[in-house]
């Protein structure tokens, strides 16, 4: 998780000719999807009362910030800085014994705490559902929200757990050998300054 985006660029430029990639969401598509999700969240919650957005590192956090900005744009009573947090799930994963160690990211909760709030978990890609399971476990240790909802930019299927997103930017039918890459300017900066979602054919 700590690998820099420069490293990503290197890898892609050297191996690029072999990989067939297809842009499925452009920057404008991502923005429209987030705008729709923001309205859906307000509609489902019947307003912005007691609403918190928790992004899952790394790309869920900037998405949560963008959603908060959109909520604030449509509801002036919302302070976008006060409703966004970051929820690290590294220590709650069920695959810690198999994967190379990930560096934990900070967990930052809004000052209001999460007790009695409606939490919207925000992540970039929903795949097996295991990250979300870890996030639910992490939430339990932090407090007792009134309700937990899930918003994702891309749902690519292949669920391994009974988990379903409440708000989906785009459903992407994929084969499990394909790779879905989400690039966001906040994190991938530099060469990948434009937001985009790309499907790469598997090797």
């Amino acid at each position, binding site marked *: 998780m700590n690998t820099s985006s420069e490293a990503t660029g290197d890898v892609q430029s050297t191996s690029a000719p072999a990989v067939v990639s297809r842009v499925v969401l452009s920057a404008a598509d991502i923005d429209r999807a987030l705008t729709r999700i923001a309205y859906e969240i307000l509609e489902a919650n019947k307003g912005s009362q007691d609403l918190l957005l928790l992004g899952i590192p790394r790309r869920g956090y900037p998405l949560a910030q963008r959603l908060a900005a959109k909520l604030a744009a449509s509801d002036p009573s919302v302070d976008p800085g006060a409703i966004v947090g970051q929820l690290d799930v590294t220590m709650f994963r069920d695959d810690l014994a198999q994967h*190379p160690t990930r560096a934990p990211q900070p967990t930052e909760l809004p000052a209001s705490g999460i007790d009695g709030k409606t939490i919207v978990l925000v992540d970039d890609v929903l*795949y097996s559902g295991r990250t979300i399971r870890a996030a639910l476990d992490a939430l339990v240790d932090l407090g007792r929200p009134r309700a937990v909802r899930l918003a994702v930019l891309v749902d690519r299927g292949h669920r391994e757990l009974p988990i379903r997103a409440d708000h989906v930017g785009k459903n992407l039918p994929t084969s499990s050998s394909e790779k879905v890459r989400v690039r966001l300017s906040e994190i991938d900066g530099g060469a990948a300054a434009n937001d985009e979602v790309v499907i790469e054919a598997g090797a």
Partner: protein
Amino acid sequence: MRHLLSTEQLSREHAIQILDTAQEMSAVGEREIKKLPALRGRTVVNLFFEDSTRTRISFEAAAKRLSADVINFSAKGSSVSKGESLKDTAQTLEAMSADAVVIRHWASGAPARLANSGWIDAAVINAGDGTHAHPTQALLDAFTMRAHWAKLSGTPSVGADLTGMRVMIVGDVLHSRVARSNVWLLRTLGAHVTLVAPPTLLPVGVEHWPCEVSYDLDATLDSGVDAVMMLRVQAERMNASFFPSTREYARLWGFDDARLARLDALNLKDTIIMHPGPMNRGLEISSAAADSHRSTVLAQVRNGVSVRMAALYLLLSGEMRSEKTPAVAAQPSPSLPSVKDPS
């Protein structure tokens, strides 16, 4: 990184990874539920052949906060007093399927023997061996210094090192594994270390260490310092006359009230005073210095739990297993971070 045996071979990258992980671990200590499930079902054995309070409790707290099962073993009251060898003790633990062994031993090199002999399969963490090394103590000292150093410069401590920091290590360097581990780690992190001790309490070959050596505490203080680390006078290892009297030692090399006032006079308002504990108040450190706002003694203990959590986590999850099963672990390449992890 398979074992944590000393700080000499620890790369800057690994050291900073441990400190950064410890930073996130320290946040857990402030939560309502001070527990993470990361090492659930793993067994950590605390194997202590030498007395210890804070290191053992700290390792125990660290393992328990990560949900590991902890077995405490101390040589007193065990079969070791019936003459059982280290090998047999270790293999007994192996038979009980320990995943990590935290070992403190009076003999230098015992943890390395345990790690490299093939007796056991578990990760070995050195919790202090003889006069050789005490890596987690050095890491927690570095963590404490880094937090202080980053606060002074107003930068985030994650990812930072100790470049430019002037550190003084004062006292019984000869018997101190803490001093040895700190010298190597602080060098790796870019700090400038000066050892201050009576000539009788410096080991042979100290001139080859990556640090300066001085016999004069006051002169070194005058030249400016950002952290003063006082070492314990190890009465249990004072089997020869290393200094004429404890009073003379306290006067020449102890951090007394006069030297505490001297820090203010020298306008070193941000200098911290560190001690690995247990303190001999009145000998190497005065009560006023130990209880002053400069003292980081209790912060060091607090940070010890976070650093040991980080060490246990990094050794017991992922990377450690990857050496045993390279084919499985090498596949999800960490060089492609933007791929949504397949699990």
